[in-house]
């Protein structure tokens, strides 16, 4: 069963991963934006997969 702390822990974990991908370590991003970035960060990875799928098919 989910607990109320799990979303916060999930966001903190996502923040750590995403910040490592940013040139400034995410220092310029305000705290309140990280929950949204946890969502969009997943989307960026899905864009990468779909683009790769298209390129692989076109190059086959």
């Amino acid at each position, binding site marked *: 069963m989910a607990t109320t702390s799990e979303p916060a822990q999930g966001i903190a974990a996502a923040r750590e991963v995403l910040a490592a991908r940013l040139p400034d370590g995410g220092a310029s991003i305000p705290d309140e934006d990280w929950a*949204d970035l946890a*969502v*969009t960060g997943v989307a*960026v990875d899905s864009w990468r997969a779909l683009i790769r799928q*298209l390129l692989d*098919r076109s190059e086959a």
Partner: protein
Amino acid sequence: VTVSTDPCLAPIGEVARRLRGGELSPRELVEATLRRIDTLNPTLHAYYHVFADEALDAAGTAGAELVRGVDRGPLHGVPVALKDVIECGPTTGGSAALRDHVAGADAEVVERLRAAGAIVVGKLATYELAFGASSYGDLFPPARNPWAPELDPGGSSTGAGVAVATGMAHAAIGSDTGGSVRLPAAFCGIVGLKPTYDRISRRGLIPLAPSLDHVGPLARTAGDAAIVLEACCDAVAPAAPLEPAGLRIGVPWAFFEASCDARILAAFATALEVLVDLGADVVDVEFDVSFAEASATFWAIIAAEAAREHHELCRASPPPGREARVIFETGRLVDAVLYLDAQRARAVVAAAVERLLAGTPVLALPTVGMMQRPIPEQPFGPERRVADPPAPIYTLLANLCGTPAVSLPCGFDGATSLPIGLQLMAGPFRDRELLDVAAAYEATAGWTHRRPGAPTT
């Protein structure tokens, strides 16, 4: 409501005739437009800024020129308006971050409109920085759909769609990075053209994603859109004419059918029947790119380029709103390899479209696969922008390719009476010929004459 003899709703060609025949003066036309704005704008919020005094002065000059025999063409003395990302006077981009910005010079498209005699009556509402959708919680009140004011008019050129649909301007200039001219055209029941890439200059446009950004006109008819287009850009050598009779029109069903609202599919199918009746050879075409792949390609590019353009603005006080800000921040997660792969994928998409256009010079598809939605109380989060499956915004295909695409009304939902848009695409620099096909369709379909009534809320 149908179009009457009201000069604010008359086609530009008809207005031009009346202005030259002495039945109407530019000043009378601008005064009528300003009265209409006074009446409708407090409810519909299409305009951020109205240049009443400047417009009346310009109308006086335009009228004096006509009396002297100086004729600048069909836009001479005709009221037009600008999305507030086009530099001209106060230019906020609909953002608190730019609320005090005043343009140092007019955008090139404004210079061209003025040279053609058009009267700029004001600046129009936009989704924030041509991206973050409107809400009632914004600094600027959101523009409201004239067919149902609780609904969004489509964006990001929201005010342009509303102003043109209701006769608060004869035409407007918007920007279109993924559909921002064509979506409000579809949702407001008018015509919106995304021209060939850079056919209309982007100088003086607040950028969103430069490789995808286009400047384009919104008007009530395809003929009016053609008049504005020709005033805003240099002429090109005319291509072979496109006429519905005998024209092969391709329909890439697999690209949109699964994600499109059934009401829109029904109106689209009826529109195809009209084109067949006009003599077109409408054929199914195979398009080897899924909407999800095209959408992912689009999003990777727009996010990265918008981050490049606006990341610094995210540090402004106040910063952009939540939806725009988070996408600008998200763009920094698009690394160089992903951006370059997205551009390679874009070339694959463009080549696939080019192959289709070689066999069928016009492609037809719905403009957008969802109906108008309520304006939210508070700004959206980013979820809907990165949803899986992606939002059915079929307009983005032409932004990836740079080819011209026009949205025009193709019917109204029977239950809600809300307008539905048909999108037609053609090869590069066939903008004018594409509008000719659109004009032939609208002359037969007849939807152009249907206009929203006065708002009741």
